[in-house]
C-alpha cells in the first residue's frame, strides 16, 4: 500500500463524511433541534432526488432540477407538517414514530405510483464532470469536491441559524417547552412549519446532490435514514458541530475500515477469506463505534451545550 493510496482513502473518508453530513443536515434540524423523531426523513430525501431527476430530464438542466428538488421537498415537508406532524407535538414521541413510519409507506408507494418501478436517470451536470489532479498525483472527481463545498456551506449556514439567530433560539425554546414559548408571544406553530419545511428542503437538496452520484430509486432514502441518525447521535443531538464531526468520523472510519480490515486480516488468513470476514467486520464497524462512543459518552461526543 502506498502513501498516496492511504491519503486518497483518507480524503475519501472525509468526503464521505461531508456527504453524510449533507444527508443528515435536514434531520439535524428536525430531529436534533426540534426534537421530532422523523422516520420519513429518508422519504423527503427521495422526493428531492426524484424531483430533480424528473425536472432535469424534462428541462435538460440539472440546475433547474436542483431548484425543483428544494422546492418539492419543502412543499412536501410543509404539507406533512400541516396535516400530520402538527397534531403530534404534544403527544408521546412514539406517536411520531408510528405516523412517520406510515409516511414512509405512503411516500414510497406514492413515488412508485408516479414514477414507475425502474430507477431514474440523473447525471452529474456537465460543469462538474470529470476529475481533477490533486497534488501528489491522485485524481479526484470534481463533483465530489462540489459536494464537500455544499456540505460545508450547509453546515455553516445551519450553525449560524441555530446558534446565532433569534429564530434558532425560538426553535430550541420550542423544543423544551412549546406552551411557554407560545405564551411569550411567539407563533411557534407557524415557526415549526417553516422549520420543518426547511429541514425537508435540505433533505431534498441532499437527495438531488447525492442522487446524481447514486441511483435514484424508490427506497433510496432508507439506508440514508439510519446513517443520518447514527451521525447525529454520535455527534450529540442538537449540536451542528457535533453532527459535522460525527459525520466526518463515520465517513473516515467506514472508509478506512472497508479498506484496511481485509488487508490486515490478509496477514492471517487466505485473501478470499480475508475479504469475506473483513467485509463483514467493516459493515459492522460504524455500529460498533457508535455503541462504544455512547457507552463512554452517553450523550454523544458533543452533548449539546448549544449549536
Amino acid at each position, binding site marked *: 500500500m502506498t502513501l498516496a493510496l492511504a491519503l486518497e482513502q483518507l480524503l475519501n473518508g472525509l468526503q464521505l463524511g461531508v456527504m453524510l453530513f449533507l444527508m443528515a443536515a435536514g434531520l439535524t434540524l428536525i430531529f436534533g433541534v426540534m426534537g421530532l423523531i422523523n422516520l420519513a426523513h429518508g422519504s423527503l430525501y427521495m422526493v428531492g432526488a426524484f424531483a430533480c431527476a424528473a425536472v432535469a430530464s424534462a428541462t435538460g438542466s440539472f440546475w433547474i432540477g436542483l431548484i425543483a428538488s428544494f422546492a418539492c421537498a419543502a412543499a412536501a415537508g410543509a404539507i406533512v407538517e400541516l396535516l400530520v406532524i402538527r397534531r403530534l407535538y404534544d403527544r408521546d414521541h412514539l406517536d411520531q414514530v408510528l405516523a412517520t413510519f406510515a409516511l414512509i409507506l405512503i411516500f414510497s408507494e406514492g413515488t412508485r405510483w408516479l414514477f414507475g*418501478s425502474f430507477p431514474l436517470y440523473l447525471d452529474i451536470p456537465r460543469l462538474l464532470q470529470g476529475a481533477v489532479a490533486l497534488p501528489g498525483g491522485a485524481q479526484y472527481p*470534481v463533483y465530489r469536491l462540489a459536494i464537500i463545498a455544499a456540505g460545508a456551506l450547509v453546515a455553516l449556514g445551519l450553525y449560524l441559524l441555530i446558534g446565532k439567530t433569534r429564530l434558532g433560539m425560538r426553535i430550541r425554546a420550542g423544543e423544551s417547552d412549546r406552551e411557554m414559548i407560545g405564551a411569550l408571544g411567539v407563533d411557534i406553530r407557524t415557526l415549526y412549519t417553516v422549520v420543518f419545511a426547511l429541514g425537508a428542503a435540505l433533505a431534498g437538496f441532499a437527495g438531488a446532490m447525492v442522487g446524481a452520484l447514486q441511483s435514484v430509486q424508490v427506497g433510496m432514502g432508507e439506508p440514508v435514514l439510519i446513517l443520518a441518525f447514527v451521525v447525529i447521535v454520535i455527534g450529540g443531538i442538537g449540536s451542528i458541530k457535533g453532527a459535522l464531526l460525527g459525520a466526518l468520523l463515520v465517513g473516515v472510519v467506514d472508509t478506512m475500515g472497508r479498506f484496511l480490515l481485509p488487508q490486515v486480516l490478509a496477514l492471517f488468513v487466505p485473501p478470499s477469506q480475508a475479504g469475506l470476514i473483513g467485509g463483514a467486520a467493516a459493515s459492522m464497524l460504524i455500529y460498533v463505534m457508535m455503541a462504544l462512543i455512547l457507552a463512554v459518552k452517553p450523550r454523544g461526543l458533543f452533548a449539546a451545550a448549544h449549536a
Partner: protein
Amino acid sequence: EPLKIGMITTLSGGGAGLGIDTRDGFMLAIKQAGNDEIEVITEDDGQKPELAVQIADKMVQSDQVDILTGIVWSNLLMAVAPSAVAQGKFYVSTNAAPAALAGENCNPLYFNAAYQNDNLHEAMGEYANKDYKKMFIMAPNYPAGKDSLTGFKRFYKGEVTSEVYTQVGQTDYAAEIAQIRASGADGVFAFLPGGMGIAFMKQYAQSGVKISIMGPGFSFSQDVLGAIGDAALGVKNSGHWAKDLDNEANKKFVEAFQAEYGRLPSIYAVQAYDAGQLIASAAAKADVKDTEAFRAELLKADIQSPRGKFKFNINQHPIQDIYVREVVKDGDVLTNKIIAPVFTDHEDAYAKDCKM
C-alpha cells in the same frame, strides 16, 4: 379442472422493477398459450421472506395452487421453495437459483427456467481469460455475492489482484475505486445488481480511472441501464440472452413484449416468459395432478425459447449457451448487443452432485 399457478414476486419497494418484468414476461407467455384452463394468481412479496412464506402458505392452503413461481431473490426462494416441494407442489423458478438447490438437495418438483446463480459469473471468468492478465473482482457480501466470485474464479486463470466484498446496499464506492486505481489490475469484474451497480458505475465514470469494467448481466440488465446512462456504454457483460439474439422466437417475443408493455424486456422477463411457456407446454399434454407425467413433460422443455436452444440438465437447471454482450446505444435507448458466445451448452458445477 384448471391448472392454478401462484406467482409470488416483488411488486413493491425498491426491487419492484425485477418483479414487474417477471410478472409481465410470464403473463405474456400464458396469454400466448391461449389456454383458458390456466389460472394465475399474483401476489406481492415486498422483497420480505416472511411475507413470501405467508403468501405461499395461503396459495397452497386456500387457493390450492398446483405450481408456484415468480420469486426473484435467492433468500426468498430459500424460504418458499423447499417447503413448497415438500408439500408436493411444483416450483418453477424464474430467476433465483441458489447453489443449495442445484446439487445434493435437488428435487424432482423444483425446476429452474433461468440458470444456476453461478453461470453468468463463470462466463465472465472464462471471457476474461482472453485479454486480461490481472483482475480486480468485487461483489456484495452476501451468499449470491460469494457465489458470484467463486463462479468467476472457477474459470478465470489469470491473477486476481484483490477480491473485495462490499456492503449489501452500499451507495458510495470511492474507497473501492481508489483500490482499483492502485491495484495494477487490467480489468475489473463487478457483480453489483440494482441500485448498487448504478451508483458504482456513475462514480467510476467520474473517477478518472480507465481500467475496463465487466460484470454479469444482472449488473447491466435492461432495468438499470437507463439509470446508469452513458457511463455504461461499451461495458462487457455476460448473458444467456440479448434483445438482438438472432432467432425467430426472440424476434416474436421482443416485438410482442414491446407491443404489450411499451418497453424493452430484460433477462428477468425472458426467464419468466420461458417459465410460462414451459408450464403451458406441459399443461397442454399432461394433468398436473399426475405429478410424474407432468414432470416428464416439463423436462422435455418443448418450447421455442427466445434464448434459442433450451434444455434441462439432470438437476432440472438449464443447459444453455452463454454470451458476452456489450452495452450499446440503439437510437436513444441503451441496450445489450451480443458479441460472441463464451460457453455453448453450459452445465452448472453442481449438477454432478444431484442424484435424481
